[in-house]
């Protein structure tokens, strides 16, 4: 059932090249996180999401110190090695200090256009709105210059429908995973999500749709294995999910920036692009990287854990990701206070040896079983 998803993620460049030819649209590399893909689609671009990769880091180290996260280092590696030749321009957001400066590095090193959707960190709604208007205008101009096409009401409406359907399908898949624990292998689940980073959205939608149909017909296996929730910026390295599968624990929900935090977004408001972007960035799931005084991440996560039936939480921590690191101690304390075990597991996208991660996962899951 999941072969075609696995196929995509083991042949990323080929997949992108094929669709690039087929669609005749410029490929836009989308950096983490929350750049609304609708805008790119509506401008006639082919968005491809770059959440980091597992290339060995060689060239990127010339410009990014070892204390930068491997998400940033590996996307730079990809461009420097020529692995992103098909990418015509890069879309950034300002979610962290590393990415803000990374954009500057790109502008000095490469000729490809870059644009940044700066995410405001102010609590004053009026200032935020006014500022976002300026930002959105500059981003859409940048996009339109690359694609040579204008974003119209019509193209934005179409794009918004495609992505609304996409996220709805994602949410269905999340729902099946939660209500039928064990039916979807952890490794398969994340492969299905990850394939969507590279496929044209309509293609991925069709694949998800038929997958969901099949899954809906199947009954939940009987299992009393531990159920957990994972939280972090990215769910990679994907191979690690084989470890979860081996010890047969069920990830019943997640709070990944490239997982649920994105899947939970509602339909993009195409009638008011500024409202659309604001809603998209700030709602409904809080993120360590987005300052939003209107939502309390503690309450949010606690509710999520309870409603998912998870018995414990793993913070999947990309080493050197400061925004995530700041939130964790208080969040963990809060969860523990509520009787929910929680732990942090440190990962790097470039890692090739998973022994210590495996030990940590094992130890945590065994503790849940006691």
């Amino acid at each position: 059932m999941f072969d075609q998803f696995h196929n995509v993620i083991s042949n990323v460049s080929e997949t992108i090249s094929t669709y690039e030819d087929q669609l005749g649209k410029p490929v836009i590399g989308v950096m983490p996180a929350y750049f609304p893909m609708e805008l790119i689609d509506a401008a006639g671009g082919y968005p491809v999401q770059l959440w980091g990769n597992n290339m060995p880091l060689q060239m990127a180290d010339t410009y990014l110190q070892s204390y930068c996260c491997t998400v940033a280092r590996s996307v730079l590696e990809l461009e420097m090695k020529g692995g992103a030749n098909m990418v015509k321009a890069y879309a950034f957001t300002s979610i962290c200090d590393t990415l803000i400066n990374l954009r500057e590095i790109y502008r000095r090193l490469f000729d490809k256009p870059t644009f940044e959707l700066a995410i405001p960190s102010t609590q004053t709604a009026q200032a935020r709105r006014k500022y976002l208007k300026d930002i959105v205008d500059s981003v859409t101009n940048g996009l339109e210059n690359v694609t040579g096409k204008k974003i119209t009401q019509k193209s934005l409406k179409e794009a918004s429908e495609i992505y609304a359907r996409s996220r709805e399908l994602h949410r269905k898949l999340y729902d099946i995973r939660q209500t039928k624990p064990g039916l979807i292998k952890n490794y398969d689940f994340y492969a299905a999500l990850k394939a969507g980073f590279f496929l044209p959205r309509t293609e991925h939608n069709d694949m998800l749709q038929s997958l969901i149909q099949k899954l809906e017909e199947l009954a939940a296996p009987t299992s009393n294995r531990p159920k957990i929730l994972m939280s972090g910026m990215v769910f990679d390295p994907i191979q690690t999910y084989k470890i979860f599968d081996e010890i047969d624990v069920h990830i019943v929900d997640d709070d990944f920036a490239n997982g649920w935090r994105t899947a939970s977004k509602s339909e993009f408001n195409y009638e008011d692009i500024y409202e659309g972007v604001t809603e998209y960035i700030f709602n409904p799931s809080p993120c360590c990287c987005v300052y939003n005084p209107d939502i309390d991440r503690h309450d949010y996560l606690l509710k999520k854990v309870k409603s998912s039936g998870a018995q414990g939480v793993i913070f999947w921590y990309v080493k050197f990701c400061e925004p995530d690191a700041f939130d964790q101690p208080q969040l963990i304390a809060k969860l523990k206070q509520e009787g929910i075990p929680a732990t942090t597991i440190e990962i790097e996208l470039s890692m090739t040896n998973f022994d210590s991660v495996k030990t940590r996962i094992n130890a945590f899951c065994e503790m849940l079983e006691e």
Partner: protein
Amino acid sequence: MTDFKSISKMKEIMTEYYVEAKTTKEKPIAWLTSGAPVDFVNAMDIIPVYPENYAAMCAASHQSVELMEIAEKEGFSQDICAYARTDFGADISQGGPIQGLPKPDMLIASTNICKTVTKWYQVIARKYNVPLFVVDTPFLHDGMTNELVNYTMTQFKDLENFLADFTKRPFAHERLEEIIMLGLEASSYWKKMLSLGKTIPSPFNSLDTFIHLAPIVVLRGTQKCVDYYKMLYEEVAEFAEKKIGSIPDEKYRVLWDNLPIWFKMRRNSEFFEEKKCSLVAATYSNSWGGLDAFELDTKDPYRGLAQSYLGAYINIGFEDRIRYLSKLINEFSLTGFIMHSNRSCKPYSVGMYRLQEEVSKLTGKPGVVIEADQNDPRVYSDAQVETRLEAFIESMESVN
């Protein structure tokens, strides 16, 4: 480091300041980031307290490691800025040179130095259950734009309302204007003082300025601060006039980029002196209304204020950083530049290797990047850093 008489004055006013902050019964306490618009806070008679300054004090007095270890035990990762870790540790244990900072009644953070501070202050806001006001000063990828200045000014208005609500008093606009003027006056002395570094030999070195910048951070907007910088300026000007160099036989003149290595001030000072290398300009010391990267609007104080908070060196795009660094290298007759790749401070450091390449190419002056940290001696190696610096110093042509 140079023996300026003013240092005792500085110690005196800093002590007075901390004593008041620690003992006040009636005035509220605000914790602020070093780049936050303190002028508004001062206008409402709220005492500003600077966790960054305190963290630096802890490191300079060699107490940062034990404090960071306390924070790390509570789960704060070694990956987060060492200032934050030092302060968390000091707050948990009420440790450090003055046994912790007085508890905050409110928090004000500005993003012009980093996004990290919004995370740091959220942790504190949750711990003490006090309000946090974030003044968003976005990164200037493409220089100072009207949109950004307006955005910042709108938030100043909101900050005024926030402070008025908090204190249940109308916002003191007239007082604010006085404070802005006092702040400008102090920074103009600071700026004049820093410009004296153009004298050959330089009458001070940047390690001095790292020490002497404390009042411009914490006491900006007060008469005391103006008086202090006037005194410092006059003293340094006298040195300059008499051509007394901060180090004997100044041979090399370099710029220091990024924060100091607070726990190595003495050793660094001796090292550079021995090599006859004077640090004469520093982007960090320039950041407090010193030598600005942009022209500021002096007719409209609000606008000028917004511009100066936005235009902090650490908040500007690489094109502007390169231009600014090159300008300093030329104006200060520098023979080279040192960039401190600071593990704690990503906004200041990420991209530095590229900046070094470009600035060297543009100015023809050698530059070096050293790997260190402003507050965490555990990730610092004397041997490694000094070997690199020695090679760099040898590669420079001497000034005369």
